[in-house]
């Protein structure tokens, strides 16, 4: 599924607007535990998390994550967005919680990495 479509189904807001939303992802890493993201490393995956600190982007970069969805309406700060942009990681935010985000993505045939 293209990142642009993911943004639409999650009623999301893209925070790195200058990055490519035509990229495809088919696997989801959903966790607030950064070691879990690393343990189930899947290159090119979509990371779903409620953790909006700078380590979420550093973890995503190490884990070759293509895009991050921040849940529950949490908005990361500008420093995080700048780092994500620098590492070419698309960042978006949604008002949905973890359960709903995962449910919606699964309904659209996305698969879990864990």
């Amino acid at each position, binding site marked *: 599924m293209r990142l642009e479509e993911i943004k639409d189904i999650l009623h999301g807001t893209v925070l790195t607007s200058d990055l490519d939303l035509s990229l495809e992802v088919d696997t989801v890493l959903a966790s*607030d*535990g*950064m*070691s*879990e993201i*690393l*343990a189930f*490393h899947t*290159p090119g995956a979509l990371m779903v*998390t409620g*953790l909006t*600190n*700078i*380590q*979420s982007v*550093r*973890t995503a*970069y*190490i884990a*070759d994550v293509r895009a991050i969805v921040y849940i529950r309406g949490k908005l990361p700060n500008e420093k995080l967005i700048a780092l994500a942009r620098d590492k070419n990681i698309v960042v978006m935010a949604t008002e949905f919680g973890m359960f709903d985000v995962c449910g919606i993505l699964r309904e659209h045939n996305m698969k879990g990495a864990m």
Partner: protein
Amino acid sequence: MTVYSEELFKRVFTVYGHNFDTAGETSTEIKSILKGLEIDSDIIRRALVVAFEAEMNVVMYANIGTVSFVITDEAIDIEVADEGPGIPDIEQAMQEGFSTASDEMREKGFGFGMGLPNIKKNSDVLKIESDVGKGTKLLARIRLDSNA
């Protein structure tokens, strides 16, 4: 760890404990170094997981530490030495789910008892020495010809 093979690259990074703003920067830099080399992507991934988890352990628990990153013609060696509280029971600390992390660490997404198990899983050789009250030394080797 004694390195008998030829050392092709070496860099030593200082990691400051309890500084979450810069936590992960060393591993991010190591990734930039590795990306430019002709090394199998799975080997790179494993080295980065080891480096990142070990770096976060220094940030979370120690006052200061060093990450020594060495590439030889046979392996990637990551040696992390810190000045910190040490690990009283290494065997227990290696068990998945065991953690002495504070709530603050968990709120930052770490300290769920997966760090050392992740390091072990991604290393071909792992040696940990710890002196309670003084610090911990971790030596991890990822062989370039391995594919775990």
